[in-house]
C-alpha cells in the first residue's frame, strides 16, 4: 500500500514537473513573440521618424489606388468583420449546443450505466481551470 502511494505521488510529481516545464516554455514563447512584435513597432517607428518625405511617398503610393476607394478599402474590412462575426457566432452556437446536448446525453447514459465516468470538462466542453 505504501509502495503504491509512493508510486502515485511520484507520478503526480512527475506530471506536475512536465506540465510546469511545458507551460513555462509556452509562456516564454508568447512573451518572446509579444516582445518581438513590440520591437518591430518600435524599430519601424524609429526608422520612419524624421523621414516624412519617404513615408508620405509610400503612403501616397498605397492610397493612389486605381480601384474605387470604397471598393478597395471598405469592402475588404466589411468582409473581414462579417466573417469574424460569423465565426464567433457559430462558435457561440456550437458551445450552447454542446452545453444542452452533453447534459442530456450524460444524464441518460448515467441511467443505463450508473458507474459511468465523466470527462470532467465544463458543460461547454472546455478544460476546467483546476486542470491547467
Amino acid at each position, binding site marked *: 500500500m505504501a*509502495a503504491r502511494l509512493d*508510486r*502515485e505521488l511520484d*507520478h*503526480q510529481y*512527475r*506530471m506536475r*514537473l*512536465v*506540465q510546469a*516545464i*511545458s507551460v513555462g*516554455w*509556452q509562456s516564454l*514563447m*508568447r512573451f518572446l*513573440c*509579444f516582445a*518581438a*512584435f513590440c*520591437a*518591430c*513597432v518600435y*524599430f*519601424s517607428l524609429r*526608422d*520612419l521618424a524624421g*523621414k516624412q518625405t*519617404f513615408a508620405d511617398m509610400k503612403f501616397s503610393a498605397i492610397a493612389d489606388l486605381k480601384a474605387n476607394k470604397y471598393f478597395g478599402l471598405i469592402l475588404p474590412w466589411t468582409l473581414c468583420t462579417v466573417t469574424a462575426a460569423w465565426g464567433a457566432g457559430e462558435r457561440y452556437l456550437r458551445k450552447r449546443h454542446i452545453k444542452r446536448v452533453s447534459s442530456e446525453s450524460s444524464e441518460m*447514459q448515467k441511467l*443505463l*450505466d450508473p*458507474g*459511468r*465516468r*465523466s*470527462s*470532467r*470538462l465544463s458543460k461547454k*466542453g472546455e*478544460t476546467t481551470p483546476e*486542470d*491547467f
Partner: protein
Amino acid sequence: MQSSIYILSAVGAVCAAWFLWTLGIKVLLLDGMRERLFEIRFELFRLGMSGELPFDNEAFRAVETLMCGLLRFGHRITFLTFLLSSLEIAKAKKDKDYVDVSQQIGLKISRLQPSTQVKMAKILKDTHSVVLVYMALSSLLFLTIMAAMKVCKLLGLWHSESTREKVSHVIDREAYLAETQRGMRLAVA
C-alpha cells in the same frame, strides 16, 4: 532602411500568425480532437448498451478510463510533454513495480469474445489516430517528423507501426494514470 522595415514587418507578421495559431487555431484543433473522442467514447457506450460488452467489464472500464483521461488532459498533449514523459517513462521502466498500461488494457481486451475484441481494437486504434493527428497538427516539429516517417515508410525504409505504438503507449500511460489518480481522490472524498 527600406529593407529593414520589410524585415521587421515580416517578423511582426510571423509573431501575429503565431498568436493566431496558439490562441485560436490550436484551441479549435483541441475542440476537434475532443469532439472525435466523444464520438468514439459513444461507440464504446453503444457496445455496452447492446449487451455485447457489459458495463462492469474490466476491459470496458479500462478503455473508458483511458478515454476520459485523454478528454480531460487533452490540452496537455504536446510534443514537448511527450518527449519529457518518454524520458520519465524510460527511468520508471527500471523500477520493478513498473506497470505497462497499454499492455494491461491489451490483456483485458484479449479475454473478450473475438468479435468484441475486433471492435475494441478498432476503438483503440481510432483513439490513437485521433490523438496522434492532434499532436502532429499542434506541433510543427512533430508534423515534420511524421511527414518524414511517412515518406520513409513509402520508400520501405521505416516501419511506422512500432513507432506509432510506442508513441501511443506513452500518451496512454500518462492519461490513464492521471485519470485513475483523480478517480481515487474522488472515491476518498
